[in-house]
């Protein structure tokens, strides 16, 4: 089946679901339709897309996109990619765990890296990064720490643990604290 045929097939059986082909995949225009579409595809006698092989995210700067790869263990020939687009500030996506139990860890990972809020997920917490980590590192505006200089937190920690710290590190930390949080000059903002 070509993508167009799949699109028409879904639209015939699920009236009211808006789909749009994007490159080789289908964009589900309203994220709330996603569970319906996936449930239909899983149960459908023709497509039998009964295996959710991956859940990932993409950051497009103005919005976030969640990408699902569905595969059929019966037909073994065809895989379908579904996308949903959500707001960057409020990325709520319905969870697919009720349909595919295997989506649990994948959605946790997508939450960990991109911050998607999967509504209906039984246990949404970080999976790769540790608890207490702040931010979503795969988003394009995530700002990494500069690991070559010690901050004031580091100095405090070291002094508390009885490690001697040279004067220059302390001064450096103080200057960072007063001069803003990063010593990154603005001119280095260009990045390809």
């Amino acid at each position, binding site marked *: 089946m070509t993508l167009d045929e799949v699109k028409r097939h879904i639209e015939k059986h699920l009236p009211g679901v808006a789909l749009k082909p994007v490159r080789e995949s289908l964009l589900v225009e309203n994220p709330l339709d996603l569970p319906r579409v996936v449930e239909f595809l899983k149960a459908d006698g023709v497509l039998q897309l009964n295996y959710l092989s991956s859940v990932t995210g993409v950051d497009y700067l103005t919005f976030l996109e969640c990408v699902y790869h569905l595969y059929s263990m019966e037909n073994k020939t065809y895989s379908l990619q579904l996308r949903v687009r959500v707001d960057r500030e409020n990325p709520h996506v319905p969870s697919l765990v009720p349909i595919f139990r295997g989506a649990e860890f994948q959605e946790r990972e997508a939450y960990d890296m991109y911050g998607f809020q999967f509504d209906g997920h039984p246990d949404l917490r970080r999976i790769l990064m*540790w608890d207490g980590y702040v931010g979503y590192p795969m988003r394009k505006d995530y700002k990494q720490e500069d690991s070559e200089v010690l901050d004031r937190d*580091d100095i405090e920690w070291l002094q508390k643990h009885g490690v001697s710290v040279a004067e220059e590190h302390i001064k450096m930390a103080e200057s960072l604290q007063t001069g803003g949080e990063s010593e990154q000059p603005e001119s280095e903002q260009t990045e390809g």
Partner: protein
Amino acid sequence: MAFSKNKSQVDDGLKSELAKKGIVITTLNELYNWGRRSSIWPMQFGLACCAIEMIATACARYDIARFGAELFRASPRQADLIIIAGTVTKKMTPQVVRLYNQMAEPKYCITMGACSISGGPFIDGYNTLRGIDRFIPVDVHLPGCPPRPEALLYGLQTLQKKIDSQDFRKAPWYQKGLKREYAIPDLGPKGLIPKFNPEVWQPREEDHRKEKYGSPMVIGKKTKAPDLDAPPKQPKAPAPKPPKRSDDSAPPSKEA
């Protein structure tokens, strides 16, 4: 590194001459270090792809047993060498430092591969420690991605040379007040706290990488994203080749 400290006073030629007659001359140091270097017990501990090379080195073909280091122990209490074989993530760092702290003296450390030396291919990652030497002292740095088993054997021999050069009368692990336990970092909101242990490691004075790319090579400043709705670009047809010039023809006239 020079390993000449423990050279014996007796001429090597004379020694081997005497050895043929069944007389062995040695020093206590030599004997002691020979014993130590010939039975290094590494820790059974691998972190990423380099560990596969370490396993290959331990197997029959490369056979690390020839150098006396075949007994990989699964407990730090029984090991005297830790081979940091693989990428040290920030999440794993506290455990690695703790394992090193738990090893009995005398203890040695080999960093195997670019990752454990500096972060390697993942140096700009949000999740990778830029070299385990930020938290524990390292005896042998072994570059490569991954180093071949031969390289690991060479690294082991280098360590053996270092052991040979140590004097047990002055050995630090027999001295009083030895502090060889290092502070175990905590996991903070953006990475490790502290970012390095200044007693063990200091930032480089000249950091060419920093000059060139900024530090870190910043993610968070990416301003471009592909536009999926635009039609995919057609690959350009290759430009037609200019016709070949033969040497004896007149110089080609300029075309506009």
